[in-house]
């Protein structure tokens, strides 16, 4: 049952490693966006510390959204996706594998670089820890929900902008609890409850999102 999952992750990772520039583009976008805010707002450390969780999280949201198009587009163009839908394995499982691989390539680097960006905003050690954990729980959810949008807009004109329009409203709960976890840690309330909710959303979308994505892919490849 889980063997196709392993193979599809391995395949996607191999392809991603051969086109490494895509990975770095997402990462650099994230770093640049987050670094732009102090330039717009001013270098006041107190203000920056206050807005840091939100800024880093919104940056992560935008970066992972930009990377979404890559999940299916290449496979759609060369027909691989169609063949995948024809295999006897459940499509939702294949989708889960692709999303997981996509998260490893585009989400994990964001999580790794985030503490560095947090330092730019003078966040404390506890806050950095909360930031990493919240991103670790939140970014897979972003990939899972985003995959639905990517599948729905597959091969459409103006797919990229449309994808943003569809997916960003659905990202709001993750943003609220993700940034909220860091903020609660900063203010001394403790981010435990936020992190639990993030985990709950992750589990729910892990179950539901691949099914919706599979249905959307069937529609797109019909």
């Amino acid at each position, binding site marked *: 049952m889980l063997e196709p999952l392993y193979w599809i992750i391995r395949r996607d990772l191999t392809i991603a490693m051969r086109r490494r520039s895509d990975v770095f583009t997402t990462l650099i976008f994230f770093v640049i966006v987050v670094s732009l805010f102090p330039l717009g707002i001013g270098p006041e450390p107190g203000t920056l510390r206050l807005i840091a969780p939100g800024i880093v999280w919104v940056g992560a949201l935008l970066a992972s959204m930009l990377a979404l198009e890559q999940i299916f587009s290449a496979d759609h163009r060369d027909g691989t996706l169609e063949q995948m839908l024809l295999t006897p394995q459940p499509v939702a499982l294949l989708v889960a594998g692709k999303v997981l691989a996509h998260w490893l390539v585009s989400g994990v680097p964001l999580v790794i670089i985030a503490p560095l960006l947090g330092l730019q905003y003078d966040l404390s050690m506890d806050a950095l820890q909360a930031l990493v954990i919240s991103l670790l729980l939140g970014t897979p959810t972003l990939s899972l929900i985003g995959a639905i949008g990517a599948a729905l807009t597959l091969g459409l004109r103006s797919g990229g902008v449309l994808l943003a329009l569809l997916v960003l409203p659905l990202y709001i*709960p993750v943003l609220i609890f993700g940034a909220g976890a860091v903020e*609660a840690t900063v203010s001394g309330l403790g981010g435990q409850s936020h992190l639990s909710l993030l985990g709950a959303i992750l589990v729910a979308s892990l179950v539901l999102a691949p099914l919706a994505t599979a249905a959307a892919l069937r529609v797109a490849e019909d």
Partner: protein
Amino acid sequence: MSSRFINWFKFSSPATFYPLARKISVVSTVVAVVLIAIGLYMSFFVAPTDYKQGEGYRIIFVHVPASWMSMFIYLVMAGWAALGLVFNTRLSAMMAQALAPTGAMFAFLSLWTGSFWGKPMWGTWWVWDARITSELILLFLYLGYMALRSAIDDPRRGDRASAILLLVGVVNVPIIYYSVKWWNTLHQGSTIRMNQETTMEETMLLTMLIMTLGFWAYSIAVSMARVRAVILERERSANWVRELAEGRT
């Protein structure tokens, strides 16, 4: 058994539904005009002045029914989407498509009247209140649906893709609502509470009810008129549409 099914599905064909939609549209237009006229009259002249908010509160008679409609229409659209996916009926998707602009209009109307209400009452056009924020997100969901719908040229794919989007949206709406609500209570020790008046005066309630029913009738009238246009556009190569067009000229 079979006769019951025939009754159910008779009007799921665009050709049989088209004339019915016209009748429904005409009747509900009349109902809407009458009800909204009565409702507006009552909200301006009959309903008493609120002792706390003065005359400005009267915008509630448009604001609250509009918010209700915007939420309800999204649910109805999701219901049509589910029907369309299960039974593969073209008309269901057309109904969802016809409802979307009305729902978006109500969401926008609710935000707009809300901010007109907020300015004299709270002294600000916009508050990041949980309900206002959720209403804004609902408007985004409507816009996303309409954008996806219009971006897909193939009608069959458009039907099913936007149906999936609606179902995903309807699962997310409660999660979004509660997360926004919680975010709101955590962020600002909210000084403003909407709708503290749990006990409403009877005429006020009645007026609001009439306005709500009027908005219902309006939504039905407009969506039926729109679904007729959608049917004609989609079925333009069907024989009955050709005959209809020839009969007109």
